[in-house]
């Protein structure tokens, strides 16, 4: 590089101050940065950005310049690209969110509909790259972020343009378990290599098992038929046996998502109807009980025949409170929020216990008062 080129690159590099390092590996270094002082981008002053340093031997400036032309929220919005003597620096907007890997680790496998939606968005992002002759080559759960504004496909560090006539890629890399077999030197990668990775991603989202683990294939075989077939076809060893484009895979995912597309979807629909029926019956029981006890309590209070009748009326109200809260409201709330299955089962029992305890305390006080009255 000529001296002036280096100086310009250094000045560009020094225009950012590092907030913290996000990652470091064979593929380069990733930093969270912001513009230092008034760096010329007044509207972005203070805005967080991501700077990636890519080793010269794996970086391809042309790829990033083409990505820069893409105006889509699903792909990194490239702000600046500059070349240092030993590496390429790329500065993109920072996307705050949770990676698919973090999401599945925290909350377990996704439902078919959600996983299909996420994978379809990744297909759309990958498709934009494929239209420009680019292949991502590193689609994995760590490179897909779920943000407030949707799904983002990040880390194009090893993206490549397809070279007509080439028999194999000159650099391989990729994430073990998610990279297509041809990335290990068998053939050149193309859009179908990304299709493979998206299929592995889909499998991970549905099973919660990393594609790099030995148990992944068995976990995929345990899926319902519809999603399993989509994953298996996308992940066929032979590229010609896969979906031939990200669009084709996206169409298959669309059918999967609509259907509930599977027994799982139909099971969830049936379970939802059953819950609503039970809630309806509970509500009816609660309403009838309330009416009955309130009427009886009113009679006992206004026309007492025995000295303990007013206390009996209050006991009736106490029982109505227990029925309405612990027997009707709490179970109905539990049934109508299936996503909380794992935790509100225990919470439900605990809350019912508290309500029962409260009602028993009231009962005890009234019983003592009634006894004193009679005495």
């Amino acid at each position: 590089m000529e001296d002036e080129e280096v100086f310009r690159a250094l000045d560009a590099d020094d225009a950012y101050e590092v907030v913290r390092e996000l990652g470091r590996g064979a593929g380069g270094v990733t930093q969270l940065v912001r513009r230092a002082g008034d760096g010329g981008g007044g509207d972005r002053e203070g805005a967080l950005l991501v700077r990636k340093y890519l080793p010269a031997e794996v970086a391809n400036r042309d790829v990033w310049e083409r990505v820069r032309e893409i105006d889509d929220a699903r792909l990194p919005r490239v702000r600046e690209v500059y070349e240092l003597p030993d590496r390429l620096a790329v500065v993109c907007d920072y996307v705050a969110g949770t990676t698919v890997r973090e999401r599945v680790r925290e909350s377990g496998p996704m439902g078919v509909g959600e996983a299909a939606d996420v994978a379809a968005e990744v297909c759309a992002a990958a498709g934009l790259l494929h239209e420009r002759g680019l292949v991502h080559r590193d689609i994995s759960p760590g490179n897909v972020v779920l943000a407030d504004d949707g799904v983002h496909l990040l880390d194009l560090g090893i993206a490549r343009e397809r070279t007509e006539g080439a028999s194999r890629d000159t650099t391989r890399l990729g994430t073990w378990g998610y990279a297509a077999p041809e990335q290990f030197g068998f053939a050149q990668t193309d859009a179908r290599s990304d299709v493979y990775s998206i299929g592995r991603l889909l499998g991970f989202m549905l099973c919660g098992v990393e594609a790099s683990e030995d148990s992944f294939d068995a976990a995929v075989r345990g899926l319902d038929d519809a999603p399993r077939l989509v994953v298996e076809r996308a992940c066929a060893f032979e590229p010609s046996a896969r979906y031939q484009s990200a669009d084709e895979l996206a169409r298959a995912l669309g059918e999967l998502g609509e259907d509930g597309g599977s027994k799982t979807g139909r099971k969830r629909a049936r379970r939802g109807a059953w819950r609503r029926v039970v809630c309806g019956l509970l509500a009816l029981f609660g309403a009838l009980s309330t009416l009955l006890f309130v009427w009886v309590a009113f009679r006992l209070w206004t026309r007492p025949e025995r000295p303990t009748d007013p206390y009996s009326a209050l006991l009736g109200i106490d029982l109505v409170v227990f029925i309405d809260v612990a027997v009707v409201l709490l179970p109905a709330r539990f049934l109508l929020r299936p996503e909380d299955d794992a935790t509100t089962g225990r919470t439900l029992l605990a809350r019912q216990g508290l309500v029962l305890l409260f009602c028993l305390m009231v009962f005890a006080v009234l019983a003592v008062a009634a006894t004193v009255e009679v005495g």
Partner: protein
Amino acid sequence: MAAETERTMTSIEDQPLTEELLERLLASSSPDQYLSQEEPGDCDLSEMLLTLAREKGISRTEAIRATGLSAPYGYQIFAGTRHPNRDAAIMMAFGLRCNLIECQRLLKAAGVSELWVKRRRDAIIIFCVDHGYTRERCDDELFRLGEETLLKVDAGE
């Protein structure tokens, strides 16, 4: 000036001199006592250069231009991917406007011998560093006094 990394160091000038640390080591009852108190750590040239630049508010571009070294070479020295020879390290000290203490530490971090007043050429350089001369003015003095300049005709690599 923005630094490449966030590593922080105490100011180079505020760090204790080697002689002071040696006194403390010899006064310790065991190596463990000294090491537990002083945490000498490793002295990384790249880190030192970046710290000096940050403390003095000099960008890497300004520093490399002032040394007269080629930009790629200067970049590599800052990045720690290339080790400077003695003259290049001295030129770096000029580029970063180091005082004599900072210059000597820089040379030590670079793994080369410090400036030695008993060596005629070093004495001239010591004088120039202490008086805040630029690298070009130091080379003028060296040339005038018949000594080899820091910047060689082949651009100092």
